[in-house]
């Protein structure tokens, strides 16, 4: 069955058709969520939120208005991922006494990357810096650097202007550059 037929049937309440749409798109949504969270469990939660939200909005979905069903779904995935991270950051902030937080903090403290930083240490540091970015900035960064999307596409998925995406990317890159300056600049470029 064609995607268009599946959408129409799903809009009429055909659960089997919606299941087939899930089958067609699950890897795309999960891939985005996993690259964003780097955590399988979190990515599964985002996948579920995305499809539940999609089903709720399916009746109002118009193919003409959107370039395709998968790009519409991708946009929902982006929004669910950002919301998920916001909740998680808020949760971490509220519950900083919990052992989970203690463990995360101690992971971050593990080793001093400023001293004898290896390439692996630097990559690890970059991973942590990306994780610590504000949710929207992180999404723009992940979509650009890890999904290789164009700024125009990112703006479409994040439902904002291209200027706003550029600003988020610039801030993200600058924060990484600033944090790594000591590690890289002084090491390799000291004059």
């Amino acid at each position, binding site marked *: 069955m064609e995607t268009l037929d599946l959408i129409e049937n799903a809009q009429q309440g055909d659960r089997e058709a919606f299941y087939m749409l899930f089958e067609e798109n699950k*890897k795309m949504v999960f891939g985005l969520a996993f*690259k964003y969270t*780097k955590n399988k469990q979190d990515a599964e939660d985002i996948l579920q939120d995305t499809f539940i939200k999609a089903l*709720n909005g399916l009746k109002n979905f118009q193919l003409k208005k959107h370039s395709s069903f998968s790009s519409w779904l991708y946009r929902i995935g982006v929004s669910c991922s950002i919301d998920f991270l916001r909740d998680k950051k*808020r949760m971490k902030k*509220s519950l900083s006494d*919990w052992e989970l937080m203690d463990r995360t903090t101690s992971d971050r403290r593990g080793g001093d990357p400023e001293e004898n930083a290896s390439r692996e240490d630097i990559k690890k540091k970059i991973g942590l810096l*990306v994780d610590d970015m504000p949710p929207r900035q992180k999404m723009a960064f992940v979509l650009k650097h890890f999904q290789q999307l164009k700024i125009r596409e990112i703006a479409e998925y994040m439902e904002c202007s291209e200027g706003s995406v550029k600003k988020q990317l610039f801030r993200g890159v600058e924060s990484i550059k600033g944090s790594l300056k000591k590690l890289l600049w002084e090491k390799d470029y000291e004059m």
Partner: protein
Amino acid sequence: MKCEKFRKNMILYLYGELDKKSAEELKDHIKKCPDCAREMEYTEKVFDLVEETKTEDIPDADWEKCWSRIDKKVSVLDKKREKYFDFFPKWAAAAAAFICILIIGFVIGRTTFIPGGDKITVAGESQDAFQLSLQEHFDSLKPLLIEYAHYGEDRDSNKVILDKKYVEELLIQNILLKRLAAEKNPDARQLLEDIELILREITNMDKNGTSSPLMIKEYINNQGILNAVDVRGMI
């Protein structure tokens, strides 16, 4: 053009998204400005390192489990739609009833709600501390669940707790416990997932209009949540 502007353009240039004219200007500037040349080299190096952190291996999700959760949630929504939209064919009447329930629930919920359960529980590192936190969490949840489980059964029971801040805090606590349960008590995880669904529905109740106290009541009763909370709370 000042160096600052060129530095912004460097990033776009490395993305391959700088227009031709600006790219030429940038290249000319770099030839003349050693600071910007060095900055460009540094930015390229950072981009290379970022590229190396890219996660290529995406694991397989537990697709069956994910679909069954989606299906379960959607079934509840469907049931609610069938039942209530057929029952109240006029949108205006349904909306008015919903708003009345919302306002009454909010007012009564605010006045009858016992404060103190909204504190975030602090857990220690041990399994015992986790179990204790779980039990405290269930104790905090019980009044809310009981209220929804008996919604509409008598004249005075059509009130629901709608203290959003309180419910949101319960939700945050629930999410955290769910994550910890994955390591410490996998059996409790499913129950916490069901409770998360309920708490999300309650917090979204006035946002999208797709949830209602009756729908939540049905879910609590069908899934035997209250009984499960009692049993879990005693373990």
